[in-house]
């Protein structure tokens, strides 16, 4: 079998001491980053990018590290959700509904256990999916010419805008703002400077690390300063991190179904872990909640979102690796890092870089096992980290952000720019704008423009090229639908999907932006 051969090759790469070490560091940092409210995988990866560049890590090792942070954070986020009722990332908001309820009833141990097991099942099943479907999708992706790429990117923008916030128009405004930031610098086509105001620092364009850390980490520091007078949350007792055979049996099919659902949702552009977890929760509520126990501490209400959000991570890697078009903020940041290393993911990426793809897949199998060990017997160690006072944690995060941004160009200009974006990001978040579309547009903006101009060059300026293939027309139809539906129904999928009681949690300030 081809797959088995390739996978064995992948394991020989993933088991190299450096890669094994990086997978461990990735999942360890991911768990901590996911757990700490305010720091999500976007921040974590953005901060590590300059460091991995400085260390001259090879792309495979870098991807193993970043993916570890990404899926590791989906394990860690449930710890603070269950114990403190403070979702570590937005994708664990649905977990809070039953998870915190369970811990209030003194069943925090079983809640943590099922969340680790569900995360493991979701994570592992989705890697199987990634392994089989990514090469298939890559073959299909060869159909994509510049015109189709252009429409696909437009579709990604409209989907992310529709799916991230409560207000679709604000999502689009955030996207357009990101596109504006993306045009700063030398025009790739003609080499003339655009929006540089004569500043040499801007000729290379804005570095996405500076923008990302500003929008996510610095704005988060301001959010936390605002809440600094709110007082510390009370932590529930952990107890024994175990579940009974009966509880496991009750959750088994829930976890399998939610994993498949989460994986499929993850593949869609714009719909990431958060949407996946909400969908899984409401679907399972309809299928298995006969006694109306969801929301009252039902263990299946923890199993569903936790397996779905982990599964969505592997799903989200598929469009990133096979089309080069990420669908979420976190995958956009990973794409930015790959592009900076002159690696352009696309239809031929997997076949031309088999070591990278199969090494990554193998490392994800290993990483999920590591995470199961870290999150089941060792969860007590992580809980201690939640006890670190805010007055150490927040300045420490700010300082590490500074080191990372300074490492990009060794310039104070970048630091001031970063602070500026932090202020803008803070204001946007206070006015209910999603910030992930800004990052996605910043990374995809140049790709969108290049593909549009290439398509029109090939067609000698004939605009009908954008509507000439069935694939392009199909994508346009989806663009129209994704824009028309939320406007006509005046509701966003987030509203439609969110379980009734989630509103209280969703409106809270302390839930970090979508990642």
């Amino acid at each position, binding site marked *: 079998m081809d797959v088995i051969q390739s996978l064995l090759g992948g394991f020989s790469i993933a088991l190299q001491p450096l890669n094994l070490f990086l997978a461990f560091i990735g999942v360890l940092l991911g768990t901590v980053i996911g757990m700490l409210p305010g720091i999500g995988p976007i921040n974590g990866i953005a901060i590590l990018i300059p460091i991995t560049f400085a260390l001259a890590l090879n792309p495979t090792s870098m991807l193993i590290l970043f993916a570890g942070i990404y899926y590791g954070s989906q394990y860690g986020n449930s710890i603070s959700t269950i114990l403190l009722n403070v979702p570590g990332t937005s994708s664990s908001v649905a977990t809070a509904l039953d998870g915190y309820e369970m811990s209030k009833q003194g069943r925090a141990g079983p809640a943590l256990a099922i969340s680790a097991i569900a995360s493991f099942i979701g994570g592992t099943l989705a890697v199987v999916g990634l392994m089989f479907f990514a090469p298939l999708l890559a073959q299909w992706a060869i159909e994509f010419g510049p015109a189709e790429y252009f429409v696909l990117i437009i579709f990604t923008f409209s989907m992310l805008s529709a799916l991230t916030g409560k207000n679709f128009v604000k999502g689009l*405004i955030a996207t357009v703002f990101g596109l504006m930031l993306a045009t700063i610098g030398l025009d790739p086509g003609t080499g003339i400077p655009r929006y540089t105001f004569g500043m040499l620092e801007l000729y290379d364009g804005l570095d996405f690390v500076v923008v990302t850390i500003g929008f996510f980490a610095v704005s988060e520091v301001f959010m936390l300063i605002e809440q600094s007078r709110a007082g510390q949350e009370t932590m529930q007792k952990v107890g024994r991190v175990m579940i009974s055979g009966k509880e496991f049996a009750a959750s088994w099919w829930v976890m399998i179904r939610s994993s498949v659902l989460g994986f499929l949702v993850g593949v869609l552009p714009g719909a990431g872990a958060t949407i996946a977890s909400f969908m899984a929760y409401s679907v399972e509520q309809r299928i298995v909640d006969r006694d109306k126990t969801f929301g009252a501490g039902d263990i299946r209400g923890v199993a569903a979102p936790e397996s779905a959000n982990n599964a969505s991570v592997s799903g989200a890697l598929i469009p990133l690796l096979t089309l080069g078009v990420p669908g979420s903020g976190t995958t956009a940041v990973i794409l930015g890092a790959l592009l900076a290393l002159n690696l352009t993911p696309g239809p031929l990426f997997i076949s031309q870089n088999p070591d990278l793809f199969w090494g990554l897949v193998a490392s994800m199998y290993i990483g999920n096992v590591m995470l199961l060990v870290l999150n089941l017997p060792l969860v007590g160690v992580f809980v201690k980290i939640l006890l670190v006072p805010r007055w150490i944690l927040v300045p420490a995060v700010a300082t590490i952000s500074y080191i990372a941004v300074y490492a990009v160009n060794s310039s104070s200009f970048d630091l001031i720019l970063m602070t500026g974006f932090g202020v803008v990001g803070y204001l946007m978040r206070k006015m209910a704008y999603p910030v992930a579309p800004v990052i996605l547009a910043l990374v995809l903006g140049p790709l969108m423009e290049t593909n549009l101009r290439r398509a029109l060059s090939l067609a000698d300026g004939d605009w009908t090229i954008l509507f000439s293939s069935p694939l392009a027309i199909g994508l346009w139809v989806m663009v129209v639908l994704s824009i028309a539906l939320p406007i006509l129904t005046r509701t966003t999928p987030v509203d439609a999907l969110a379980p009734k009681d989630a509103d209280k949690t969703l409106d809270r300030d302390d839930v970090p932006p979508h990642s």
Partner: protein
Amino acid sequence: MSDRVTAVLLLLLAMGFGYAGWQFTTSFFSDPLGPRAVPLATAASLVPLAVYLWIRPEQKADWPPGRTWLPLGIGVVGFVAYALVLEPLGFVLATTLFFIVFSRLFEAKLWQGTLTGVLLSAALYVVFVWGLDLYLPTGQIFERFF
């Protein structure tokens, strides 16, 4: 209210962005679209969005109570000041000062912030400069000692 103010600002941004984008022309050969089409389209797409925001503003923005603006202001000034003193004072001293200010914002005692700041900035310097081989400024004011 906040949404309406934003709508006006966005319209101004669209106009400024479009006006500046109009100047991007080249005399030499270029692709059919040239460098200004996408910036102009981007600016144009902001106009209907801003108009929509003006027509249909949301109830209210979630602004913090008045007393938190002071710590927020200190936070912003602290960030900018940190950027400005990083190279003259060097990483360790600048970070310690930054840490003292920021830990005070989170109601730590002065000695707690100072002690943690000194230890943490030294530890981070060791990890990032000696361990990970990144460059961090040692400080212009210390240069004559070396």
